[in-house]
C-alpha cells in the first residue's frame, strides 16, 4: 500500500488486513502502563487540514504519537495558505521538509488524489482524511472496525446509511468498503439528498426509514451538512427530523442486536434523538476509540515496512 486515498481502491483482502491490524493494535495496547510503541520512530507525519475537524485530526495525531512518529499539524488558517500558496506548492514544501506521510483534509473532491500525483516519486505517502464530497476512507474503516467488534463478520449483514448521502464523503466511503466486506447496504434518504448515479452503486435505495428498521443489523446516521447546502433540499429541519431522524420510537423498532453509528459531529434532535445517542446500542464513543487504532494500523501499513522503492 503506497497511499490511502479511497476505499474504492481497497479489496476485501486489503481491507480485512487493515482491520485485523487495528484489532491487534488495540489488543496490544490493552492494559499497558505505557501506551507508546517504538514502531515508527524517526518517521514524520504531517497533517494538513483545510477544513475543521476534531476527531480525525486528534486521532491521527495520537495514532502517530503512540507509535513514536513525529507528528506536525498544519492548519490552513495559520499557514502560508493564508498568503495564497497553492496546494501543490504546500505539498512540495512538506515533502521537501521531510514528511514521510501527509494526511490531508480538503474541501475540494479529489484533492488527495492530486496531492498523491504531485508527490509521486518523493516517497511521501498520502492519506485522504476527507476530500470534499468524495471520500473519507479512514472514517469508513473505523466504522467497519466498530461493526466487526459488535457484530463479528460483516458478510450478509444489512447496514442502512441514513440522511444526507449527497454531501457525505462518509457515505461514499462506507458504501464501497461495506460492500467489499460483503454487507448489504441500504441508502435511506429523500430523493433530493441522493447523488446522481446512485443507481450504479452496489446498494439498494429507500425513501422510508420506517420500512427498513426491523431488518437492520446496523444503522448509520449522517449529519445534515448545512455548510454544503446552497438550496432547499427539504422543507424544514423539523420535517427532516420527523421523516429521517432516529427517534426513540424508531430506535425501539430496531432488532435488539442492531448497532447505531454516527460519524460525528452529531446534531442531537436533528438526525438523532439525544436519548438514542446515549443508549447501549449506540457505538458512537467506540467509533472514536477505534478511530485511533484504525489510523495506527494505516500508518503501520504505510510507513513501517520497506517501501516499494527500497525493495526494487
Amino acid at each position: 500500500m503506497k497511499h490511502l486515498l479511497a476505499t474504492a481502491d481497497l479489496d476485501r483482502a486489503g481491507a480485512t488486513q487493515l482491520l485485523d491490524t487495528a484489532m491487534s493494535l488495540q489488543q496490544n495496547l490493552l492494559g499497558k502502563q505505557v501506551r507508546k510503541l517504538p514502531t515508527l520512530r524517526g518517521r514524520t507525519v504531517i497533517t494538513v487540514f483545510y477544513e475543521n475537524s476534531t476527531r480525525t485530526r486528534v486521532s491521527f495525531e495520537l495514532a502517530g504519537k503512540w507509535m513514536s512518529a513525529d507528528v506536525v499539524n498544519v492548519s490552513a488558517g495559520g499557514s502560508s495558505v493564508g498568503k495564497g500558496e497553492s496546494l501543490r506548492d504546500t505539498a512540495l514544501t512538506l515533502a521537501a521538509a521531510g514528511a514521510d506521510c501527509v494526511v490531508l483534509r480538503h474541501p475540494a473532491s479529489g484533492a488527495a488524489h492530486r496531492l498523491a500525483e504531485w508527490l509521486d516519486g518523493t516517497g511521501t505517502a498520502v492519506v485522504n482524511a476527507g476530500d470534499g464530497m468524495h471520500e473519507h476512507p479512514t472514517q469508513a474503516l473505523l466504522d467497519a472496525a466498530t461493526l466487526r467488534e459488535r457484530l463479528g463478520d460483516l458478510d450478509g449483514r444489512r447496514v442502512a446509511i441514513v440522511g444526507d448521502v449527497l454531501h457525505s464523503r462518509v457515505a461514499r466511503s462506507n458504501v464501497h468498503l461495506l460492500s467489499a466486506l460483503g454487507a448489504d447496504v441500504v441508502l435511506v434518504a429523500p430523493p433530493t439528498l441522493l447523488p446522481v448515479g446512485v443507481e450504479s452503486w452496489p446498494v439498494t435505495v429507500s425513501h422510508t426509514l420506517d420500512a427498513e428498521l426491523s431488518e437492520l443489523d446496523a444503522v448509520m446516521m449522517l449529519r445534515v451538512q448545512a455548510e454544503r447546502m446552497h438550496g432547499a433540499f427539504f422543507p424544514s429541519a423539523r420535517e427532516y427530523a420527523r421523516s429521517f431522524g432516529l427517534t426513540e420510537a424508531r430506535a425501539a423498532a430496531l432488532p435488539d442486536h442492531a448497532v447505531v453509528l454516527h460519524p460525528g459531529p452529531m446534531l442531537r434532535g436533528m438526525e438523532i434523538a439525544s436519548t438514542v445517542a446515549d443508549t447501549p446500542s449506540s457505538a458512537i464513543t467506540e467509533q472514536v476509540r477505534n478511530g485511533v487504532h484504525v489510523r495506527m494500523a494505516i500508518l503501520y501499513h504505510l510507513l513501517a515496512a520497506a517501501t516499494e522503492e527500497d525493495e526494487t
Partner: protein
Amino acid sequence: MAPPSRGADRTAGQPAPRELLTADDVARTIARMAHQVIEKTALGSPAASDVVLLGIPTRGATLAARLAERIAIFSGVDVPYGTLDITLYRDDLRNHPTRPLEPMEVPGGGVDDRVVILVDDVLFSGRSARAALDALGEHGRPRAVQLAVLADRGHRELPIRADYVGKNLPTARDEEVSVLLEEVDGRDAVLLVRPHGDDATGEAEQE
C-alpha cells in the same frame, strides 16, 4: 505481503533437510527444560516468586503452553502463560514487507514483580529477545526476566544469552534451523536446512 513463513512450508523446493531432533527428542527436551525451570525458580517452595511464561509467536507461544503443562505435571504448580507479540518492537521492520501482527495475551495479574520467562523456538541473533525485552517493559516491571529457547544455534549479534537451552545446535550462518511443532506444523521436529546453490532463499533467519 506475508512474511517468510517459519516452518514446514519454508523448506519446500530445497534439499532434504536434516532432522536434528525427532519428535521424541523434542518431548524429552521440553520435559528437561521444565525441570530446569522448576529448579532454578524454586517453584513450589514457600520462598518461590510468581512465575509467568510468555511465548513469542508463533512457535514460542506453543512452547510456552507445553512448558506450562509439563511444569504443572512435575511440580503441581500452575504457571500462568501467555503470548508476547514483538512485531512492533523489531529493528528490522523497514527491511521487510509489512508484517502482520500476532496475537498478544498477557495473563491476568500482569508481569509486575514476577519472574517472567520469555520462551522462543530458536535463539539466533538475539534481536528477537531484545525486542521482547522492550515489549515487556511496557507491560510493567518484572522482578526478573529469563529466556528459554528450544534451540540455540549461535551467531549472536547482541550480548544476550538464554537461561534455559533445550539443545545447542552449532550451525553455519547461512543454514536455517526450523522448529516444527504438532499444533502448528502437524508434527514435532527440529530440522537443519542447508542452502543449496540457486535454491537458497538468501533470506537470513531473523530469530
